[in-house]
């Protein structure tokens, strides 16, 4: 993760650089970030964090994370990527009911009365969820008490702005400009 920090308070800038690294590492988000830029101006106060992700958060469908085939009236489904097993199970329960999902082993299950074309349309992970988790992680790294917040979200970049008083137009403009610069980096 490349990290660029600009701040007006020497001690605070160094401390928040360290905090940002540690908190994101604790939350398992460091590897997902390619470049992060932090603007820290506590005297205003104004904090802008802009993060460009390594890859565009993907929308994963059922066929991307499992294999399935029709067997009689039912469908035999085999999970091919274990990371998504909880999500697959909860989506199937929500769509067909718990009684219709018979989990035989850790990865194999029979979905009664299901249809393969129907399963093709089931979304297991939405790209927005990944971005929302990243935004949540960024809020945690911000100083407490910055209750006026604004965020800009692009295909691969997330930018958040936080201040204590009224959100000024020029603050939002600065956040959007930083966001555009980070987005432009991705296109290079």
């Amino acid at each position: 993760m490349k990290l660029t920090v600009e701040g007006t308070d020497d001690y605070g800038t160094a401390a928040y650089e360290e905090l940002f690294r540690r908190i994101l590492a604790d939350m398992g988000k460091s590897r997902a970030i390619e470049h992060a830029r932090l603007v820290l101006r506590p005297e205003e106060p104004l904090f802008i964090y802009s993060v460009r992700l390594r890859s565009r958060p993907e929308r994963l469908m059922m066929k991307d994370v499992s294999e399935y085939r029709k067997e009689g009236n039912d469908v035999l489904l085999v999970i091919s990527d274990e990371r998504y097993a909880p999500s697959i199970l909860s989506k199937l329960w929500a769509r067909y009911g718990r009684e219709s999902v018979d989990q035989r082993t850790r990865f194999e299950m029979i979905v009664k009365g299901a249809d393969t074309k129907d399963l093709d349309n089931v979304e297991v992970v939405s790209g927005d969820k990944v971005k929302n988790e990243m935004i949540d992680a960024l809020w945690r790294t911000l100083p407490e008490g910055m209750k006026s917040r604004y965020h800009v979200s692009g295909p691969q970049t997330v930018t958040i702005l936080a201040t204590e008083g009224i959100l000024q137009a020029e603050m939002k403009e600065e956040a959007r400009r930083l966001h555009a610069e980070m987005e432009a980096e991705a296109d290079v």
Partner: protein
Amino acid sequence: MYEVMMYDGGVYRSDELLDLIEDLGGVVVQKSRMAQIMLITMAVPAEDRPTIEAFSKELGGEIKAVPLAGTEIAVVGPTLGRHHMPHPICDIAEQLRQYGAITVVMGLARGRGKETSQISADERAIIEEYDAAIYVLGNFKKCVEDKKHLFDDVSIPVILISGPMPDGLDEDCEGIICGVGRKSERMRRADEIEKLVEIADMTSDIITQRRIELEEDPLFIHPAEVKERLEEMVAVKESLRPAPIVLHLDGIRVKIPYEANREELESIEVLGRRLGDVARISPSRISNSSTIIRILTRSEVEYSDSK
């Protein structure tokens, strides 16, 4: 002046040590026995320390310094949120416990924010029940400086802990230690442990200074002596709180309801006087389940007698 110290040794002949403490005019602050190990925290006249040390050596035990024994100290953060609360505040509280203090950790309701931080009169009154308060603030110099209203009116000694060294706060608190600030993990590196020791040492110095000031006009009775009387109360014996009686420099916190026990507390006899005549007894501002006893100084008692 009384000096507080701890005997760490065996049970063998420890009753003789207890007799010696009594003979010297000292008091036992706390006594705990674990199998054959005996820990006795005592307050004895400072000039009698060599006598206690010599006798402890004879018993095969040793005398340890517990400079903060007999004190209750509040470690205060701007909020209870994860940004301020867990690591440095709990680590500091734990370090002070190792120096013998009873510590409490406290978060203000609206202490966060550079421009919007506040402290209520109730919160200030609660903090002032303790012997000293340690305020742990954050990493930005301007924010720390702008939050001085959280502690500048507090009447007890305040030590400020922050990341950078703030300017212009020397008059508003008894001591400042920088280099801590917000942290995302426990303070366990060598330099961080040194910082914790520095905080505890500064607290000890400030408490010692406060003890010396108290000696200029001594309390009518030492809080540890009142503690012995309080332990005889049925309400205290029945209290399920882990430490029903906590010593302060100038009094005691006893964790029994004020309203139900006021008359009994006031009528306790100490040095031939009613406790109500030589101490101010009031309910704790934290809740009704605790009572604060502030012992008057000798001159205050003389003044009230003369009226």
